């Protein structure tokens, strides 16, 4: 099925994580007019690390993600530092959503979808050969190059996920945020998704935050776990958090 070694893109490009980039999320609080959604979230995230975000429904996982993206207004700061020379840089963010707002029968091909994010030339006007090739190359990182002419609405959950991953890492961001898909992906598809995440971690210089509902995955792949319930209830190594009393209280 899936042959990583064939993937010249991945082996040639990108230096792997240097561990010297640090994202400091400080005192993030999000309020609506009536309630506090998340409160005083403090996080340090280093490149090359996977941080898993777990919690029951409505615990504020998506809110935190949207606050980091800048879609939700928040108090507190997010700073990105290069520890090598201690400079503060602009943080670039990649985001993989759970799903897209595309109805059945929508005439948007994967090429259109992709080009819309990385090109200035309007996608309804003409198809750019060079761009087409570049998109195909980027898609091939996740073995999705054959999907380029398909309509986005016809893709399976797993296929769409791979396309969205490619979009999120073009260009390669400092921080990759992933909302784990809840539906539309079978067991094999999930495994493929996790393998891809693991490959990203090894080969790219980026930090990842993953909202996950799969504790087997969290235990096996993540470096750090945050248990969220409006504020951080428990954080630490996967084993430490998943075996804690706080975890049992929330998911018990």
């Amino acid at each position, binding site marked *: 099925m899936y042959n990583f070694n064939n993937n010249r893109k991945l082996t040639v490009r990108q230096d792997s994580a240097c561990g010297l980039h640090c994202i400091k999320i400080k005192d993030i609080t999000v309020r609506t007019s009536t309630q506090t959604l998340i409160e005083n979230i403090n996080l340090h995230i280093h490149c090359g690390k996977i941080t898993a975000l777990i919690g029951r429904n409505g615990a504020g996982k998506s809110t935190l*993600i*949207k606050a980091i*993206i*800048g*879609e939700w207004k928040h108090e507190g700061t997010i700073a990105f530092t290069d520890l090598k020379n201690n400079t503060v840089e602009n943080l670039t*963010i*990649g*985001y993989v*959503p759970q799903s*897209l*707002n*595309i*109805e*059945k*029968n*929508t*005439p*948007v*091909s994967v*090429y*259109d*979808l992709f*080009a*819309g*994010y990385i*090109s*200035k*030339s*309007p*996608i*309804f*006007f*003409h*198809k750019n050969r060079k761009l087409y090739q570049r998109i195909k190359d980027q898609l091939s990182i996740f073995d999705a190059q054959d999907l380029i*002419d*398909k*309509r986005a609405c*016809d893709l399976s959950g797993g296929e769409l996920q791979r396309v*969205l991953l490619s*979009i*999120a890492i073009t260009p390669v*961001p400092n921080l990759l*945020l992933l909302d784990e898909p809840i539906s539309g992906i079978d067991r094999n598809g999930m495994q493929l998704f996790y393998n891809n995440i693991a490959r990203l971690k090894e080969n790219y210089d980026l930090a990842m935050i993953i909202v996950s509902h799969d504790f087997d995955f969290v235990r096996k792949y993540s470096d750090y776990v945050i248990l969220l319930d409006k504020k951080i209830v428990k954080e630490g190594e996967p084993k430490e958090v998943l075996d804690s009393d706080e975890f049992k209280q929330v998911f018990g």
Partner: protein
Amino acid sequence: MDTLYKLMETILPFSWIEYNFMKNALLAILIITPLFGILGTMIVNNRMAFFSDALGHSALTGVAIGTIFGIADTNLAMLVFAILFALLLNTIKRKNTVSTDTVISVFSSLSMAIGLVILSRGGNFSKYSGLLVGDILSITVNEIGSLMVIFIFTLLFWFLCFNHLHASGINSSLARSKRINTNRMEDCFSVVIAIIVMFSIRWVGILLINALLILPAAASRNMSFNMREYHLFSVMISLFSGVSGLIASYHLGTATGPTIVIIASAIFFFTLFLRPSGKSKA
């Protein structure tokens, strides 16, 4: 303008082209229908059909406010009101407290009612009933000029902003992560729709304007696989139903707007059967 008229008479060997009002109507249709076709693609994709319908309805209130304040140019009153209406709708929508459908429906009914109440004072609403159906044959040369300006302005907007607009509609968080200001995009698009709707409503009519915006794109969707086909077919269907509707209405002695809508609807149902079976071509 005279040279253009002469040219049209030489190129088009039809009896109806002798009339200047028919030439004007044809020119107006050649300008406005491609715009409807283009804007419609995004309105349908982003599920804004209800929104553009409400905008059309707000025209009545615009006219009413114009008459109250004695603004001679009701076009201007309509335009200003529609833009404010669109931006207000967007703001309330973003508060996320009520479902979008409900908000739009409330606004649409209210603005229609306010307009009707004010305009029907003293029992002379019949003076304004032309707004409901519209009359493309009454278009003047100056108005064609302003349509042309809007045409160019909209094309510019479309070429510059389409990708970001498209991204905003597909997933706002993803668009945000790519540093696209989704709210600004949404507002700009709403304002453009407001301008086009208000400028064409006199000729197309409040009751039909949404049909002309939605139908070509909806029909085009049934046969396209990507954005390029989607736009191309939509513009072609829009142009075709516009021109053939005008000619048919001349020969049949019917109102032009509804005739165009019937032709566009017929095309929609035809394409529904052509529809690809859901699989993309390779």
